């Protein structure tokens, strides 16, 4: 990958090419960014990528640590955060995806050191798909192969036009690859989605199934491919005509290289990992006719990286509990939403993931009862419910790092600008500082049982926020012109 950072016309203008976008799972590596003192201009980035790069020069960036909503010195914030976790009986570490694997690794290390729980964005995303990979196994490939070879793209419960805006143009439908020189005209597109999504508008065949019948439709396709008839109740159950399901089966049989792109449509609906397992079995069966692969459209940035790093460090992809001193894996028991719903965690660390906005209400309510420490770059629901906010560094822009693309290919992202503060160089650096502070506290206490005695106390101490002040500060922030 060639790289180039040059001085532009004005002295403070930086132009950078081949920048890696740290926003969705596609990890596009062809972005051009021009930054000066006040503005950011991007080329090749989609609307979401562009918005993130504009964060480099935004008015709502959090640039100072906050304790209970008030600006505080960095050392106090780290100390307070360390105190919270040293005092907790069941600390929970949520390692979000908008950061590099190097930082994730340290987060997992802290969780292990404290005997806490650790989970990442996969838990509210493609967790069920990951479970299916464990159950059935995945026939996969890289995005390079899909763009150069695939002549059938099946989007199952996926709407990349919204979730991965450059998916269709870079890696599938419109891309003119080595064996796919005709672009859209050389590819067949099938969309399986209860909504007529924007992606469905490009489809040769849209199976508009009833919600929650993915399993039945997948099953019917396998039945046809195995030479049998689907059950007579098929149309009534799924809402799909027999004509359409046979057409879909024919498309699979005719393909030379078919890809099933699975989205959250199968992972977030009833049946979850069973749906995903079935999709993987269908993929295996498709290989009787041509080459067939399945890829998960992983949405959040480095979410695949978390699974890789956790699996590498302790053998499991997500939802891990270290409380017995060894890693135990059990989605539904040690996963974020379940732990919070049961009111188990008594302190939460949330790194680069706006859990306040993205978890169901009953889970967020628990977060309002316990001390919460977050790494955040902007004001928002997560910062609102956090007791300590540590300013986030924009990985891939202000510090280098590794991101796993949605096909599990690690991509290295360079930095091209410095963070707007000097107390930390990267989120990894922040976590190392936090880890060391925790270690010092544990050592000072001789790491005896008394270390956990004050857990409840800390919880109530952390609540002494004047809400008025916090909201006032927010109002001031919001009244400033937004970039």
């Amino acid at each position, binding site marked *: 990958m060639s790289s180039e950072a040059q001085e532009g016309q004005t002295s403070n203008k930086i132009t950078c090419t081949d920048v890696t976008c740290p926003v969705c799972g596609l990890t596009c590596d062809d972005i051009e960014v021009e930054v000066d003192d006040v503005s950011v201009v991007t080329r090749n980035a989609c609307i979401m990528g562009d918005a993130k790069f504009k964060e480099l020069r935004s008015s709502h960036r959090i640039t100072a640590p906050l304790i209970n909503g008030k600006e505080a010195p960095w050392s106090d914030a780290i100390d307070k955060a360390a105190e919270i976790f040293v005092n907790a009986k069941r600390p929970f570490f949520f390692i979000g995806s908008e950061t590099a694997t190097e930082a994730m690794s340290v987060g997992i290390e802290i969780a292990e050191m404290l005997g806490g729980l650790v989970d990442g964005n996969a838990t509210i995303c493609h967790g069920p798909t990951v479970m299916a990979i464990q159950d059935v196994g995945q026939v996969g490939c890289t995005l390079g192969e899909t763009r150069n070879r695939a002549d059938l793209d099946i989007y199952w419960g996926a709407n990349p*036009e919204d979730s991965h805006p450059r998916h269709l143009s870079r890696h599938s439908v419109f891309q003119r690859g080595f064996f796919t020189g005709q672009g859209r005209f050389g590819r067949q597109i099938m969309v399986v989605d209860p909504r007529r999504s924007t992606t469905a508008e490009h489809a040769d065949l849209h199976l508009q199934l009833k919600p929650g019948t993915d399993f039945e439709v997948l099953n019917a396709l396998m039945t046809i491919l195995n030479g049998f008839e689907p059950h007579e109740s098929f149309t009534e159950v799924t809402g799909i005509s027999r004509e359409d399901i046979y057409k879909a089966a024919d498309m699979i049989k005719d393909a030379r290289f078919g890809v099933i792109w699975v989205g959250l449509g199968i992972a977030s*609906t009833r049946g979850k990992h069973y749906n995903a397992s079935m999709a993987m079995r269908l993929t295996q069966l498709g290989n009787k006719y041509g080459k067939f692969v399945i890829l998960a459209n992983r949405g959040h940035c480095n979410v695949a990286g978390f699974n890789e790093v956790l699996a590498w460090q302790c053998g499991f992809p997500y939802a891990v509990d270290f409380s017995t001193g060894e890693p135990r894996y059990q989605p539904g028991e040690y996963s974020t939403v379940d732990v919070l719903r049961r009111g188990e965690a008594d302190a939460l660390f949330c790194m680069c993931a706006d859990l306040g906005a993205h978890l169901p*209400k009953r889970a967020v309510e628990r977060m309002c009862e316990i001390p919460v420490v977050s790494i955040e770059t902007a004001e928002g629901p997560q910062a609102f419910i956090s007791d300590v906010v540590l300013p986030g560094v924009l990985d891939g822009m202000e510090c280098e790092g590794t991101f796993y693309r949605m096909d599990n290919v690690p991509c290295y992202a360079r930095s091209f600008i410095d963070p707007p503060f000097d107390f930390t160089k990267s989120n990894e650096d922040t976590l190392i500082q936090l880890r060391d502070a925790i270690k010092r506290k544990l050592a000072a206490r001789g790491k005896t049982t008394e270390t956990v005695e004050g857990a409840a106390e800390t919880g109530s101490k952390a609540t002494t926020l004047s809400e008025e002040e916090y909201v006032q500060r927010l109002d001031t922030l919001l009244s400033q012109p937004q970039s």
Partner: protein
Amino acid sequence: MEIILNTGGTAFQGACVKGGRKFTDEYTQEAAYCDINPEDFVALGKPWLVKITNEYGDSVVLQAKKTDRQQKGEIFIPRGPWANIVVTTYTESTGSPAYKNRKVEIEEGSGPVLGPVTLMKKYYSKRTNRTGRTPAEGGA
């Protein structure tokens, strides 16, 4: 009226979140609405606002948007704090909550549609009355 709720990301809502504009009116515009099939829309009395209530009794008021992208009997709310008021924590032992395909009640609503800061204050302002209970003490 009973209806099936699906939630999910949109590029515009995504741009708002990634751009850190989570406490702006733009976020309300991009995430606090509900897509409704034209037939259901008429059946609801062509409402400006709708109130969605889930099985726990939690409810949220949203802008009603008529669209033929939805099938009859289903609604769509973009991912975000509004949708998550009515998303349930039922994970079928996978960790992934019921973001899609869950029955909810829909009816004509009376405003206002809360902005993100007001929404957080209304539903999650427990900062001043936190209990700080640990699980052993029955915290939940």
